């Protein structure tokens, strides 16, 4: 119990520190929303009118920064995230976030889970038959693919499957822009089609790490005494592979997986950029480019919370799975 309380306390402290940094760091960056707006409107508009307009949207540069900070903390917790003062000037931040979030969760979330499951499976099989044909082909291939940059993989896939094949698979957007979102088979098919290339990109570039770590953990585990005992007992190979070896070899990977789930929400900026996929990562990039404090704050807050929650869940899960952690925690 003390362990849980301590973890929760740590969680709250980290959250507060992160939120505080999240407020001050953007304001220490060079530039300000007014300059960014002036540059975007090519200096043709009256700066006085633009400043008035930003003020109307809630930007108060002359207010005491501490007062702003307290207001910011309250707003973060009450969900009043304000109105964008960047490239989407005037759009409520919550609208932007809720529009982008499902796409990021759908694309990056699903592919992360897929990459983990698929990668672990391949790793298990490769380790079981180490030295075999699978093991001598796949790990080296994935060492290479995991070193490839996301955007490069994306561009190559676009070249092969979209440009050379004259639009066999769509290379941009989350669905055809002239379609209206609706719950129909045609629309869902369209969405899935648009997800193929970006998902393949993430999969190709991230699966390698899972395969390699899983394979190595597995090889270590296979040398353990209890595996040898399983064999001596005459258990079937598949039983030893899955129930004895893989189950234990998976443990270290699980915490890595929990953390990567936390990072899902940050999206995959480059993939979203290359594929014109309107997710959170892209919004973050734009918010930073345009010194859009309200949007940046809300996004960083979400990312922080997501990662911290993932870590917390991971801590609890490990404590539950591994008594040693619990023991040291309560001593």
């Amino acid at each position, binding site marked *: 119990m003390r362990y849980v309380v301590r973890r929760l306390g740590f969680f709250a402290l980290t959250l507060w520190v992160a939120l505080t940094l999240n407020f001050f760091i953007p304001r220490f960056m060079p530039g300000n929303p007014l300059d960014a707006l*002036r540059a975007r409107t090519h*200096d043709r508009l009256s700066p006085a009118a633009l400043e*008035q307009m930003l003020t109307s949207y809630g930007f108060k540069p002359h207010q005491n920064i501490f007062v702003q900070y307290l207001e910011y903390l309250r707003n973060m917790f009450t969900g009043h995230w304000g109105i964008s003062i960047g*490239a989407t000037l005037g759009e409520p931040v919550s609208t932007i976030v809720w529009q982008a979030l499902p796409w990021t969760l759908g694309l990056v979330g699903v592919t992360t889970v897929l990459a983990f499951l698929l990668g672990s499976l391949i790793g298990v099989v490769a380790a079981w038959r180490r030295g075999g044909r699978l093991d001598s082909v796949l790990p080296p291939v994935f060492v290479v693919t995991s070193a490839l940059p996301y955007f490069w993989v994306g561009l190559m896939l676009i070249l092969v499957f979209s440009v050379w094949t004259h639009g066999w698979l769509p290379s*941009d957007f989350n669905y055809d*822009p002239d379609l209206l979102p609706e719950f129909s088979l045609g629309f869902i098919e369209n969405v899935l089609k648009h997800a193929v290339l970006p998902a393949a990109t993430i999969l190709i570039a991230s699966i390698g790490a899972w395969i390699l770590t899983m394979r190595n953990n597995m090889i270590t585990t296979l040398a353990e005494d209890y595996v040898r005992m399983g064999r001596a007992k005459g258990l079937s190979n598949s039983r030893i592979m899955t129930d004895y070896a893989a189950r234990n070899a998976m443990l270290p990977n699980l915490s890595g997986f929990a953390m990567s789930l936390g990072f899902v929400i940050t999206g995959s900026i480059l993939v979203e950029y*290359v594929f014109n996929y309107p997710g959170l990562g892209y919004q973050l990039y734009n918010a930073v480019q345009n010194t859009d404090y309200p949007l940046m704050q809300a996004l960083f807050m979400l990312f922080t919370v997501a990662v911290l929650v993932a870590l917390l869940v991971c801590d609890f899960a490990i404590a539950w799975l591994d008594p040693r952690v619990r023991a040291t925690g309560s001593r």
Partner: protein
Amino acid sequence: MRRTKTIAAAVVSLSLLAAACTSATKKATSSSAANNPSGSVSTQPGSTAKASHKQGGTVTIVNVQGQTWSCQFNPFNPAVYAESLGFVYEPLVFVNLLNNAAETPMLASSYTWGPDKKSITFTIRDGVKWSDGQPFSADDVAFTFNLMKRVPATDLYSLWTGAGLQTVTATGNKVLLSFAKPAQPYFWYFADQVGIVPQHIWTTAAVAAHPDTWADANPVGTGPFKVSPCGPNNIQYVANPNYWQAGKPYIQKIVYPGYLDNGPGNRDLASGKGQWGSQFIPNIKQFYLSKSPDNHTWSPPVTNVEIFPNLDPSHPQTSKLAVRQAISMAIDRNKVSQIGEDGQQPPANQTGIILPTFNMYYDASAVAAAGYDKPNVDKAKSLMASAGYSPSNPLKLTIITITGYTDWDASLAVIKQNLASIGIDLTVQDLAQQTFNSRLYTGDFDLAYYGEPTSGPSPYYELRQILYSKNTAPIGKSASTNYERYINPAVDALFDQYPSADSATQVSLIKQIGQAMLNDVPIIPTTESVDWFQYNTKDIAGWPTPADPYAQPAAFNFPDAGQVLLHLYSKSAQ
């Protein structure tokens, strides 16, 4: 239009370059009716559209926005006005920057200037309806201008504060605008750039409380199109059946996807999925033009890309005239244009007059007499020697530019080479956009590479921005547009005479200002930035061309985009 910077994608050159490249705009003050001083305008709108066409067809616009759509259409919100002005809201008079400020009457059927051009009376067009069926009247016009007085955030062109607008009143079908001083240079802003909004909607309680921040998700305007529907990925416009120009628009539907980056946008242009392009395409011949005989491009120049030297005495090297003259003479602008800009941005000249757009203001003999008609390395070397520099005692200078604007980096590589030959050791410093902006505005640089992205229907607009001393500020303070800190009372006087001058005198005033550019070299133009424009003629015809430049062709220009849409028609619907 955007604007955007290359992230990694540039490596494979599929991606774009620079938002910077998309400069296209207009600002500050000044005259428009250069060739039409009396203000009599023909009453037949759209006079360049010869024949009428059958209705039908769809146009897809590829104008990289760098953002998903917010689905707001408030014409006073600078983040969205380019998608509402021209499409939904219309100006009083359309002024064509590319064709010597030729005018097309829109919501005003004619106008007359009062004495000294201190007042102007618009006659408002009869028979115009708002898209909700309500009649449009002079009251709506007066309401729009008075709204800008009541809510200063909506007075984007500082008409009430800077231009000296005093009263706006409607009587019958006339609207009178009275100014405290000659207002002719502001005609461009109040007649062309301001969209007229409906009083009956903007006086409802919710709107009247915050007209500056009102979302205006379902805009009601007089324009040729209505929004139906809008989502984060796409704005779809459909033709307004009540439109006052009978039979128009010919095009019945516009698809306007929200492209986040140039790479995807340019691919859709190359494949013909989009017909109307408005951003830089690297290696355009191979990437776009060769893909189909129906693909065309015409990107008319509108402003300068230039080197801003810091003229403040605290910067002893760049405030020295001989050094600036030497730099300007050493730069091979043709090469900068060819290598740095893929030949898509033409070379600029030292007068800062954009050619061929503003030919009538250009004095070729003065440029030749001053020695700026072609690169002259020998003369540049002797100028450097006169300033006390030599190959053994080179001048070290740093130029700041914006990270990710790869075309500018390529241009600067050429310039660096040019300057090395006259003994200037140039260091190029790439800065993040925000850092660059604040250093440019506050004068924290020796040299800065930037495209003054402001234009208007004569060179007056851009040159006044750059050279007028009221647009500058001391080092450390934010200058509005005169970043190089140029202060010359004689040049200020030329600008001050311009508003009340007749059109012939205005041309001569601009020529004198061009002469000051040659004498003082306050800035060093290198290339001319253009309106990026690519178009596909497979099904859609009626595009603006060099032979018929009836409006600025890039989709991010307003209200010009509305003019283009009134000319386009579908071949298959005929």
